[in-house]
């Protein structure tokens, strides 16, 4: 069985679920405001059905080309959660503290050596951001 086609079918089902949710939401909209979203959803429905039929036709072919395994996406997803934590840290502290910690931790995990290089990159970057964004552009990054 074609693993890639099976994965694409799952994606199509997820898209159907998402479209169904979006369509249900249009009932909460005022008359007139719902025209455009419904038109778009109708178009998306046609495209997704065509994609699903194509995937079903490919199902019997023996191929795993383009298949995405869980182990492949594990590290990028872990990194993404790290970035979410970084964004939360900005909310609780400020951009400079959170960024200094993020760069340091990220590079230590990725085994960047020597440590003084990490500290130098961290320092230069933060000074650059302070001068450009805080001093010149008056972006309140210290709040």
């Amino acid at each position: 069985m074609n693993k890639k086609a099976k994965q694409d079918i799952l994606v199509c089902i997820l898209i159907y679920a998402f479209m169904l949710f979006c369509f249900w939401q249009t009932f909460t909209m005022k008359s007139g405001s719902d025209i455009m979203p419904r038109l778009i959803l109708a178009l998306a429905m046609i495209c997704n059905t065509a994609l699903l039929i194509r995937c079903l036709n490919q199902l019997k072919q023996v191929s795993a080309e383009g298949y995405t395994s869980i182990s492949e996406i594990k590290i990028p997803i872990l990194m993404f959660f790290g970035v979410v934590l970084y964004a939360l840290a900005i909310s609780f502290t400020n951009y400079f503290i959170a960024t200094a910690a993020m760069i340091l931790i990220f590079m230590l995990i990725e085994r960047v050596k020597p440590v003084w290089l990490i500290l130098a990159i961290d320092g230069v970057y933060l000074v650059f951001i302070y001068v450009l964004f805080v001093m010149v552009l008056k972006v309140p990054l210290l709040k």
Partner: protein
Amino acid sequence: MIAQGLVLLTQPDVIIALVVGTLGGMFIGAMPGLSASMAVALLIPVTFSMSGAAGITLLVAVYTSAIYGGSITACLLHTPGTPASAATAADGFALTKQGKGLKAIGTATICSMIGGTISAFALLFIAPALSQVALKFSSLEYFLIGVFGLTIIGSLAGDNMMKGLLSGCLGLLIGCIGLDIQSSAPRYCFGVLELQSGVQLVPAMIGLFSLSQVMFSIEDVAKGKSTVLDDNAKNLTGSPLLSWPELRPLLPTIAQSSIIGILVGILPGAGGDIGSWISYNTAKNASKHPEEFGHGSYVGIAASETANNAVTGGALIPLLTLGIPGSGVAAIMLGGLMIKGLNPGYKLFTDPVTGPVVYCIIIAFAAANVLMGGCGLLVCKQVVKISTVKMTILAPLIIALSTVGSYAVRQSMFDVYVMLIFGVIGYFMRKYGFATAPVVLAMILGPIAETNFRQTLVITKRTGLLNYFLTRPISICLAILIVVALFSPLLMKIINKKAIASDPNVLADTAHED
């Protein structure tokens, strides 16, 4: 008047404004999240203490060079510095991965310079005549322009057209988020106040292009790859300058994209982002090798970069002649002109006091484009070395820059969260073969098309839409253009097949030409 303008341009304060504006604009444009409009808005108070010529020269120099600056990070890091460079990212980054980053930036630099300079000449010589055409555009024409832009999705779809169209639909749906233009009723806001003004383009774009690319790079690092370059592409030597045989095939695209850029720039509300996408699509449709687009095509870079810089001059045409801004940045610049007592209109060019100032600004705009090209070619040999820096060092810096760039747009943490959401969406979309460029394009054009379509429906309530359409020659031309854009890939395929069937040597000839 032109001679007096030239004399004014030699004043030290104008020259300083020109140099500072050009270099500063390039730098700001290269920073993700810092757009030309933000730079111009922030610089308007700085111009208070300057002369009219120096102040506006500073603004126009920043405007044009910021648009170019966006292409540097688009090519090297798949992180467009401005939305206008989004179309450059795919081809530029593909070339960087192949070790041809220097040539990619060289192409972007030269084409940006040529596009900007041609638009400056258009501004100088044909401004009043061109601006009259723009005045004839009604909401129906704008709707058709939006639809014409959306036909591009087909060419951005990548290998799977259905997936590309689905990406476009997602972008259109995201464009629906916010208050409805007519009833002010919320759509897909889920009670979140920040969503009522819609999803901001810049954080969404940073997420889709930049954060998703970092996630891909981390995946590569886990597989043992250390830099963005492909394993067989470690050679970064060479010249950013294009030789004549390299430049010659790009010239028709440069000419075509300059015209498209100027025309799009003249239209109020349409900026460099729309200009570059339309030009990219037109170049792809006209190409004998459309399959190269998105995989490292110099013609693709030339098309988008020429057009987005040509838009800058085009946007100044209705601004100076009619007081109608052709883009968001031009709208901010209108304020700067008024503050300096330069009231747009025909008199601005003929008045003995304001005339030399305006011609000085226009010539300075052309000079800024040339200076930008020169500086770009000088620094690109150093800048391209970014592609040899280890991803483990670049990735946290790109994350931190993307965050500050998203935050700086409205100084809101909400936009940072938007960037994160779009980052993970972009990663999975690319992972499962859905192109991300159609999302950005649809986010830009969807609201334009919807707003103008609904306005047209109101206008034509009595006369009827078809009657109204048939009385407007520009609309008919645009409708024909849409049909041609939709069916041209199919027609090109049939023509190529027939040509190959009748003469098998054609394939070899076309390959040689390109």
